[in-house]
């Protein structure tokens, strides 16, 4: 057998990320589901409420954010499920490469597919809701800061409920309280901006929450997954 060549952290990182990327690319149903759900919910509002600009534009921000929050929860419970059942997760837990990085990469790649696509679709879907033109920029900004937080919150829930059957109810109960502040500050920022009030504070809090979750959530996810691996 040929000699081993040790790998730098960055190349290991690359190989782990590549696997997550390929898996997501080849199972598009996983991340298309939330994207289509998001589109449908927003498209139904003009039909269900009223196609008038006045009625829609006052609720546009809230509708976009509620749809994004619910869409992000779709399939969130399945984030680690197949890896857990197929035994891929225990190999990850055994690797000398830290579990922290693996879970972080996994959630970020999951967000790139299922979360970022919601942000990208927002300008188009905001036309359905007569979102005020000058609000689009700030709505996009709150989505860009907020949807990755949602992805990490859902990942914590998915990890905690990994070994429990019927975990989806538990997942809702765990995730919802953590998601409420995100929607409050995100829609608060947009409202403040439209009323000409200072809105930077709301954005700063969202950004602080994002950095907190990106750095600390992988610790919680890793610990929960390790506990899940023990109870089989």
């Amino acid at each position, binding site marked *: *057998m*040929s000699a*081993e*060549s*040790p*790998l730098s952290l960055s*190349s*290991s990182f*690359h*190989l*782990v990320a*590549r*696997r997550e990327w*390929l*898996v997501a690319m*080849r*199972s598009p149903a996983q991340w298309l589901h939330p994207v289509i759900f998001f589109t449908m919910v927003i498209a139904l509002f003009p039909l269900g409420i009223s196609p008038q600009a006045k009625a829609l534009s006052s609720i546009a921000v809230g509708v976009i954010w509620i749809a994004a929050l619910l869409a992000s929860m779709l399939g969130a419970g399945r984030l680690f499920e*197949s*890896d857990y*059942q*197929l*035994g*891929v997760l*225990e*190999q*990850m*837990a*055994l*690797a*000398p*490469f830290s579990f922290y990085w693996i879970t972080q990469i996994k959630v970020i790649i999951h967000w790139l597919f299922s979360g970022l696509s919601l942000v990208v679709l927002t300008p188009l879907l905001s036309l359905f809701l007569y979102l005020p033109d000058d609000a689009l920029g700030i709505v996009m900004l709150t989505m860009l800061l907020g949807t990755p937080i949602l992805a990490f919150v859902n990942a914590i829930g998915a990890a905690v409920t990994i070994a429990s059957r019927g975990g989806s109810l538990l997942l809702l109960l765990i995730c919802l309280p953590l998601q409420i502040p995100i929607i409050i500050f995100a829609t608060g920022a947009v409202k403040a901006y439209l009323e000409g009030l200072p809105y930077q504070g709301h954005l700063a809090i969202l950004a602080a929450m994002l950095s907190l979750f990106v750095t600390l959530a992988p610790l919680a996810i890793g610990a929960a997954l*390790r506990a899940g*691996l*023990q109870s089989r």
Partner: protein
Amino acid sequence: MTVALSAQHLAIEIEGRPIFSDVSFEIKSGQTCQLVGPNGSGKTTLFMALCGLFEDYTGQISWQYQAQALSLNDWPQHGLFMSPKLGLSPMLTPEENLSWFGGLMGLSLTVSQIREALARMGFNRRILRPVSTLSSGQQQRVKLARLFLGYRPVWVLDEPFTALDLAAVAELETILAQHAEQGGLVFFTSHHRLTEFTPSRSVTLSMPQAMPREVQ
């Protein structure tokens, strides 16, 4: 190079139900050891405890490498554990799966190293299809090709013979025996009758007597 694994008075209970108790053994480099026990006697749980995936046990497990004690954090650099689960991503090709494993093991593998590992498990032609399209025997071979990605002295293999055809079973037995001859340590379970080699020793798990708590 020497490795050794020992356990003293190992006992595991899951939710108050004793799985096994008072298991002691010592395995050294050059030995192949078969873990024997009926279904449900805790073989997989014991293996998981040995490699640090299951922490809720009583008793002592110790690993030694070059006469130095290994902590469980060093374990992945010296050992390879295969659970009965496949551990492959069904959407990826065999080569992509193995290159990912290389990354997890901290190895930088060239394409030819990966093909060589697959060739040793009987894949003479490249397979560019996802693992999910392969037969279960072929999937098992892809999983076993991990043995050849990089040298790990300790192999802990849970049911490695599952789904393999007779020729592959014989070949794998030879591979296990060779690994031990070269100073490795092999600890495995199998319900097959081994033909190519006799394990140098065995550890037996027997179901404990039903405890009053279980009867309750």
